[in-house]
């Protein structure tokens, strides 16, 4: 008993426990949950019923899928680069999972048997550059895809890998800029401090920077290779994209990695913009005092529940988006990133810099009402940004069609006559 108490009070051991919890939540709960809900919701959205045969309401469907993947023949084609081919899915998987190390699940806990004032953090690693860690791990995610694609020695897989790389490079930029906005708001790179600030003031960062939120969200979609950014596995063009040559458990690893990645990225967006574990906006849910809510273990469980609920809502959102927005064409994808999102993100950044310079700084201890001027200023700035974007897009008369300039103009009779001459 003594030993267990001591272990729980020790940050290192507690980190190990959080690691187990984190992995359990992500790989053991979120991913199967996401897979089941993906299939269920996809069905509903298409006016079908979805899986309902395995277990009541189809809840055992992920298990059945897992068993199927285990039993399937694991083919390694003869022409692949074997070590890399085998490694790639697991790199994907590992990278998707290690992002969780810095997610602050539920603030701090003070156990009754601990020294006065001491706490353990519900975080695997309390890095003081948590945001940077998160960003770098998120961009490592593409390595699994690229290595798998390259090692497959298959042109379709290869295209998929190249697309994933180009897309990743482009969407890192708005993602980084959007995250920079959040860093400037709180002046910190520590994820738990970012959450504390939001929870204490009740001003979630989304109320300050909705534009940056949308940009980071979009970039997060692109990072996970989900529709509408799933060009890396566009099955209509590339068979299966980067996982064309993968089967059985290796394919399942890619699959799980995608879902873990979704969960990781939603956790990041939640921490940065949606108040982390804070149950409700506008109210203060944290203060430096050691009350039961701030450091109690029961409160920690509730906070964890809130966080997980937000992740679940996010996964549902991912699925709804998947069935709403059709896949971009590649040039549209690039145009969106470089001509749309990067300028907007720079705008949001400039806005935040202005706010800091003009003294519109969030002071968490003042609560929501005390920070109202800052919020209003930020929202006004965002409205200006959106207005500017609308103005620019309304002024641009060039059609966004992707037609190459050396093709005959649409509706040009002479050119059509020439073409028909060729056909004849």
């Amino acid at each position, binding site marked *: 008993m003594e030993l267990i108490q001591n272990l729980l009070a020790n940050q290192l051991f507690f980190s190990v426990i959080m690691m187990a919890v984190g992995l359990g939540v992500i790989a053991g709960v979120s991913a199967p949950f996401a897979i089941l809900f993906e299939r269920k*919701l996809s*069905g*509903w*959205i*298409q*006016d*079908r*019923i979805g899986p309902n045969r395995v277990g009541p309401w189809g809840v055992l469907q992920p298990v059945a899928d897992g068993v199927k993947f285990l039993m399937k023949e694991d083919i390694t084609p003869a022409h692949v680069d074997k070590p890399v081919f085998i490694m790639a899915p697991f790199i994907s998987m590992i990278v998707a999972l290690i992002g969780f190390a810095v997610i602050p699940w539920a603030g701090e806990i003070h156990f009754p048997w601990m020294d006065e004032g001491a706490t353990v953090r519900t975080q695997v690693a309390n890095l003081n550059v948590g945001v940077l860690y998160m960003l770098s791990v998120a961009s490592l995610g593409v390595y699994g895809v690229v290595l798998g694609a390259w090692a497959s020695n298959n042109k379709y897989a290869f295209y998929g890998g190249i697309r994933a790389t180009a897309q990743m490079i482009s969407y890192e930029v708005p993602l980084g800029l959007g995250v920079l906005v959040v860093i400037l708001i709180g002046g910190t790179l520590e994820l738990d401090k970012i959450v504390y600030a939001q929870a204490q003031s009740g001003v979630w960062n989304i109320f300050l920077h909705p534009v940056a939120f*949308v940009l980071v969200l979009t970039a997060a979609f692109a990072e996970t290779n989900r529709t509408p950014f799933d060009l890396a596995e566009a099955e209509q063009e590339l068979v299966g994209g980067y996982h064309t040559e993968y089967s059985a458990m290796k394919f399942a690893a890619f699959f799980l990695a995608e879902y873990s990645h979704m969960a990781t990225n939603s956790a990041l967006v939640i921490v940065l913009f949606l108040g982390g574990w804070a149950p409700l906006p506008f109210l203060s849910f944290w203060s430096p005092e050691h009350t039961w809510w701030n450091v109690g273990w029961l409160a920690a469980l509730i906070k964890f529940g809130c966080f997980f609920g937000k992740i679940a809502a996010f996964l549902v959102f991912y699925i*709804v*988006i998947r*069935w*709403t*927005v059709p896949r971009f064409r590649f040039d549209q994808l690039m145009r*969106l990133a470089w001509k*749309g999102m990067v300028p907007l993100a720079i705008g949001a950044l400039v806005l935040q810099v202005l706010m800091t310079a003009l003294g519109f700084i969030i002071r968490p201890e003042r609560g929501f009402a005390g920070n109202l001027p800052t919020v209003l200023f930020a929202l006004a700035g965002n409205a200006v940004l959106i207005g500017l*974007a*609308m103005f620019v*897009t*309304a002024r*641009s008369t060039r*059609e*966004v*069609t992707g037609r190459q300039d050396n093709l005959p103009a*649409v*509706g040009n*009779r002479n050119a*059509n006559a020439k073409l*028909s*001459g060729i*056909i*004849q």
Partner: protein
Amino acid sequence: MIRDEDIMMVAPPTLTTSDKLYLPQVIAGMRTTLRHMFSVAKRAETTVQYPEQKRKLRVENYRGVHRLNKDPDGRVACVACFMCSTACPAHCIHIEAGESPWPDREKYPVKFDIDELRCIYCGMCEEACPCDAIELTPHYDLVGKSRQEMVFDKEKLLRIFDETKDVKPRKNPPVTDYGLTGGQDKAVARPTAERKV
């Protein structure tokens, strides 16, 4: 030469500001998605819960598993003319002809195998058969544990006739029996003729 009036000019639709900004359109699309997601009644009525519920088929022209028809005397109606196997685009009918033991026809199939896995259920065999001996039935839920099991032989195909003749009676009366065995004569072989056995 493509005639001018055959050329259709298609101008790309002009994008509105909300189109160009993506997001308003995404939100509009999500409304549609969510509407479908919550329309419980619609998906209940569209879905057929297959093994428990079955669709009502049009028995006369549904193209399911084959059967080999029998004539009123219980003999296989096929005369091993190979028309069906010639017509079959999937080359899945294998017939071995033998000399008929009956006086009213020259040949009969000693073996008649259809590979139900290769078959594309096009119904060409049924159309080709001069004596309507091969027909497609409304049965579609056929399963087997091996490929070999899915090659249906003559006995199996005749059995299917016994099983399905109540659901779907044989189309035309037999034309092979020219009155020799005390059955019908040629006059009744017209498609519209009354069958009197």
